[in-house]
């Protein structure tokens, strides 16, 4: 990317601005940039249900502005969403129209940020990795399906095995 180009979006701090480094390997840093093409609005987290966890990220369902959205908790180690340092929830929208709600984060800034090589953006003399919410969601979804495929509960019953032998 050439110098002087600005990208619209917001800067997130995982688990708040003063939290420890993120646990999930899918998150490239403690501070991340999310493009305005994905991030739609910052909301207050209200009704939500956690259902699973994969790759160090909590997964759940939340009702936001009258619609259901997939909830991704980027800091599932904390005791509860909406705490002092995790008070924001960012509603993102994928190209498919699916809503993804990022929680366990604190929004540090919104606006236009200078884009640098990497690609990264500059924020407070720091170069922040750009988080693709669509990629993150895809990886988590794949991990969930992989784990279900490996689970003994998903194997067919012994009487239906193709070789005709009992288990």
């Amino acid at each position, binding site marked *: 990317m050439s110098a002087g180009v600005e990208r*619209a*979006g*917001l800067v997130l701090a995982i688990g708040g601005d003063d939290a420890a480094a993120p646990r999930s390997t899918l998150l490239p840093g403690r501070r991340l940039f999310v493009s*305005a093409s994905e*991030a*739609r*609005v*910052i*909301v*207050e987290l209200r009704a939500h249900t956690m259902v699973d966890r994969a790759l160090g990220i909590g997964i759940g369902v939340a009702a936001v502005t009258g619609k259901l959205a997939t909830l991704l908790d980027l800091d599932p180690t904390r005791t509860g969403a909406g705490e002092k340092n995790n*008070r*924001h929830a960012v509603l993102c929208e994928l190209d498919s129209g699916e809503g993804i709600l990022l929680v366990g984060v604190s*929004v540090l*800034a*919104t*606006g*236009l940020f200078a884009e640098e090589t990497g690609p990264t953006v500059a924020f407070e003399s720091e170069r922040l990795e750009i988080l693709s919410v669509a990629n993150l969601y895809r990886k988590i979804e794949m991990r969930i399906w992989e784990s279900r495929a490996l689970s003994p509960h998903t194997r067919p019953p012994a009487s239906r095995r193709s070789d005709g032998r009992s288990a």
Partner: protein
Amino acid sequence: MDVLRRTAGVPAGPRIALEDASLWEAREKAAKASADSSRLAEKVTASATRQRAQLDVTTERVVLFASKAEAASSAARRVMDALDRLSVVALNVGLEGARTPEPLGRALLLVSEEVRANVARGAEATRDVLAVADGLSLESTDLTQRLERSRQDSTEIGGDAALLKTAAQDTSLALGELEARLRKATGLDPELARTLSQAGDHAKGLIMALTAIESHEPHEVDRSAVVAALGPVLGPLMKLLASTTDERPGLKGGDEA
């Protein structure tokens, strides 16, 4: 033995009479001390009652103060919540401004930054207010507990003072009984006993002074000058003693105890 003699109507000797007078004097002192104790106990009771009333008023004021501190704390929390929401609004304005093309987008970004900066200042000030209000609330809670302990102490003091007053009154009653028995046993009335005791003390003093004069060497003291000096005082005293001795033959023989 002396009591038996007095009870039998036999007149007591002079030393016995002086000892009786001392008894009476001691009783008078005890009666006065008992009356003083009773009066002071009453004053302490009244003071403790007034102190309790003052403590009650102070406690009410502190509770009122605590509720106001709590209200200030609650208001500060509401302001904090409103500022948090305003901050989210400003962030959303910034996000929208970043998405919106020039020149409107830039204006939105400027508004967002300005609002966020003011929200940050307001939040800092509100946090200070909240800390002060919470501190006041804690202090007033501690103060209320201390006042309650003081009130309990004051109640105990009042109760003890009331008991002290009762004890002093019992002592007065017992001293009244003692007076009646002393009157019967010694045959003296309190006024005469007091006078007799005073006379005995003065006589002892006189004897000690004369003994001191007598202890000096003859060449040191001009005895005729001493007699000349004391004559005008001792003359009437000797006559008075002589007439008293004539009226009370028991005194002639000295100590008969």
